[in-house]
C-alpha cells in the first residue's frame, strides 16, 4: 500500500518538486532524495536534535515531520547558511575559531537551532544560550566551547 504525493517546496531558496511516499520522513527526503547530507540523523525520535532544520523561520526536528507535510513550505538546512557553498557563515566561523565542534555530528542541528534564536534574541545571556541548545545533544565538546562560540559571534555582531 504505497500512497504517493507530489510536493513542491523551497529549500535554501531553491524550489524542488518531487513525488514522495506519505511515510517518508522529511529528514530522509532532505538527505536521500536531495543529497543534502549536512542534516544529520541520530535518533529518529526527537531527542538528539541532529536533524534540526528551519521551517518557515522556526527550528524543528526534520525526523518528526513527513516530507509531504513540507509541501509549499520554506526550509533552510545547514547548507543554506552561508552565501556561497565555499563560505562560512559568521556563526560557523565563530564555531571554528572557538572549537565549538569536534566530530561535528551535532553541529548542523545546533546551528539550525541557534539561527532563529539569535534572530529573535541578538544579545542573549549565557543561560538563554544554554536553554536554546538544551534540545541538542553533543557527545564531544561538553558544550562549553559551543557556548563560547555563540558568545564570540554575539560580541562580533553587536
Amino acid at each position: 500500500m504505497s500512497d504517493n504525493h507530489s510536493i513542491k517546496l523551497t529549500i535554501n531558496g531553491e524550489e524542488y518538486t518531487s513525488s514522495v511516499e506519505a511515510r517518508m520522513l522529511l529528514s530522509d527526503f532532505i538527505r536521500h532524495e536531495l543529497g543534502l547530507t549536512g542534516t544529520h540523523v541520530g535518533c529518529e525520535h526527537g531527542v538528539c536534535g541532529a536533524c534540526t532544520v528551519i521551517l518557515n523561520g522556526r527550528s524543528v526536528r526534520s525526523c518528526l515531520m513527513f516530507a509531504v507535510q513540507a509541501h509549499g513550505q520554506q526550509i533552510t538546512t545547514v547548507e543554506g547558511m552561508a552565501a556561497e557553498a565555499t563560505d562560512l557563515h559568521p556563526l560557523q566561523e565563530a564555531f571554528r575559531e572557538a572549537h565549538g565542534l569536534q566530530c561535528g555530528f551535532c553541529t548542523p542541528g545546533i546551528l539550525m537551532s541557534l539561527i532563529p534564536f539569535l534572530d529573535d534574541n541578538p544579545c542573549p545571556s549565557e543561560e538563554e544560550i544554554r536553554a536554546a541548545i538544551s534540545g541538542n545533544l553533543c557527545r564531544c565538546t561538553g558544550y562549553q566551547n559551543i557556548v563560547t562560540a555563540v558568545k564570540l559571534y554575539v560580541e562580533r555582531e553587536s
Partner: protein
Amino acid sequence: MKPASFKYYAPESLEEALVLKAQYGDEARILAGGQSLIPAMNFRIMQPTILLDLNLLAELSYISSRDSAVLHIGAMTRLSEVEDDPLIADRVALLHEALPYIAHPQIRNRGTVGGNIAHADPAAELPVVALAMDSRFRVQSTNGTRWINSIDFFRGYFETAIGPSEILVEIEVPFHAANTGWAFLEVSRRSGDYAMAGIAALITLDNKHICRKARLVYLNLSDAPLEAKQSADMLVGETLSDELIKQVANKASEEEIMPMESLHATVNYQRHLACILTKRALELAYGRAMET
C-alpha cells in the same frame, strides 16, 4: 526504523476533517504536531493505517479572549505560541510557568496544545495544568459539538473521553481569580525530559489572607493527572503556616498520590519528591497570592 505505510489525508477545512473522521473512526489517527505520534510510528510502536493531518487548518490555531472570564485556545495552536503569549503570561500564569518544562524549544515549535492534551500522557504538563484550572475541552464531530470538563476527560494512560469520530478543537482556560497564587514545579533527570514527579498548585485567598480555594494536581504520580482533593481541602478556611503546609504535604504524598514504580524512580522516591514539591509549591503559591 521507518514508519509503516499509511494513507495520508490533509483536509483543508475542519468540516472536511470531520467527515473523514466520521467515515474512518478509530482507524484514522489525527496528526497534529506529530511530536508524540511520529516517534511512535518511527519505532513502529504505532502503525496507523490512515492519518488525518490537521496542519492545514488555520481555523484551529488561535488564542482568543472573546470572553472576560476565560480564554479559548485552538487545538492546533503551537506550544511555543502559548509560551510567548503576553495575555497568558499575565492572566493565566500557571499555564505560562508550566510551558517551558515541555520538551525542548524545537519540539514546542511544532507540538500543539490539542496534541499534548489528547495524547493524555500522565507525565505531560498540560493535562495537569488543565485539571488544576478546571479547563474544559470542546470536541466536535459531524453530529455536533460537546464540552467535556477536565475531570471527566482524562481516563488513564493515553486514554481520554474523545470519541472515535470526534476531534478535539478547542481548550477553554479560565483566567486566574483575584488574589490567586500559582506554582508549577517538577523534577526530571535532564532538562526537557518527561518528569519523574510534578505539581500544579493554585491558592485563592480572601482579603484577610484566609485560603478560600486550593487545588493540588500531580504529574506522573498516577495513570492520569491526579488531584489531591482531601489534602487541598485541609487548607480551605485556614491561614497558611509551616505546620499546616507540612501536614498537607505529608497527607498528599503518603495517602493520595498513586505512584507507579519506574526505571528512574522507586515509589518511595516519588513520594519523597511529591512531599518536597508540595511544600515548595504551597510556599510559592501562597507568597504570590499575598502579592497579587
